């Protein structure tokens, strides 16, 4: 009887054969000895079989044509194409951004390379230029400050 609580929770799954092999065996053994659980199982089985046997409802003959009008007229592919257009525009923006980003990157790389070549070919000149810039800058700041 200790198993009753656990078993009762599994009765529907047992009925639907949705338990593991071990659980199926546990339920089968328990139901063969427990009249209370067995009764509950029978009731659930009756509910299931009644649901399965529910009569088919007649569909009104013009339903399909009526629905087609609604589906293809009001909800037609408008939202679909809208979303497609939005997706396409988004994709286009992404592609353009990538193209320009790559072009810009290539340009920057070229400039960097030329600067690097410049330093390697004329280190002295560049350094001198740098010093010159510093030297021309310092007097300006000194000149603006009171002595």
């Amino acid at each position, binding site marked *: 009887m200790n198993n009753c609580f656990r078993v009762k*929770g599994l*009765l*529907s*799954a047992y009925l*639907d054969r*949705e338990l593991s092999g071990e659980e199926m065996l546990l339920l089968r053994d328990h139901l063969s000895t427990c009249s209370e659980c067995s009764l509950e199982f029978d*009731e*659930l089985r009756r*509910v*299931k079989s*009644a*649901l*399965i046997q*529910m009569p*088919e*409802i007649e*569909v*009104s003959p013009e*339903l*399909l044509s*009526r*629905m*087609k009008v*609604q*589906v*293809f007229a*009001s*909800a*037609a*592919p408008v*939202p*679909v*194409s809208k*979303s*497609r*257009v939005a*997706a*396409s*525009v988004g*994709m*286009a923006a992404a*592609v*353009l951004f990538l*193209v320009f980003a790559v072009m810009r990157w290539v340009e920057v790389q070229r400039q960097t390379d030329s600067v690097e070549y410049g330093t390697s070919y004329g280190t002295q000149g560049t350094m001198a230029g740098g010093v010159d810039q510093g030297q021309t800058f310092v007097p300006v700041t000194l000149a603006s400050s009171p002595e």
Partner: protein
Amino acid sequence: MAEGVVGVIVSFVKSSAKSADDRRPLFEKLMTNSYQQAFQMAYRFTSNRAEAEDLLQETYIRAFRYFHRFDESMPFTAWLYRIMTNLHIDNVRKVSRLKTVSIDQPVGESASGWDLADTSAESGDSHVDDILNEPLQRALQAMTGEFRTAVVLADIEGMSYEEIAVVMNTSVGTVRSRIHRGRKQIREHLEHMSSMNSQEVAG
């Protein structure tokens, strides 16, 4: 180069719009093949012919709108039922919310101890009378929305717990519990109705 990119985009947009139109005959065919069975499910969900037709139509409208997302390697009905189930559960929740707002108003017939019952079908439609004569359909109508959905998918549609879990977007464990509790609700409802009838006969 930019012209080339724009050209590709324009042709992509054109082909997208064309493919939506091209898919219409396929959708129409799938719709024709599925609507009768789908109507059965809609009817079991709503307990009402007019509401079942509305639910079915809404389902197809949504399905066509998102048809480009449909994976043709999957069964169309599984995808369709998922849409219908979501719509149905949304409708049930909307009705519950409306009921909560108008809680001070008299609820009449629904005050039978089935607090969580879905009364969406009690909208004064003349077809309801026919349906209410069927005790089992009445029990389905009185059930909690999620329980009813799981039970209908299992017993009317014959789906496995795993398939139901996919359709209801939940775990197999939750499906197992909903089906079990749903069937128990039906049994209790039938017992309740049977005792009411015997009291009426005795009185």
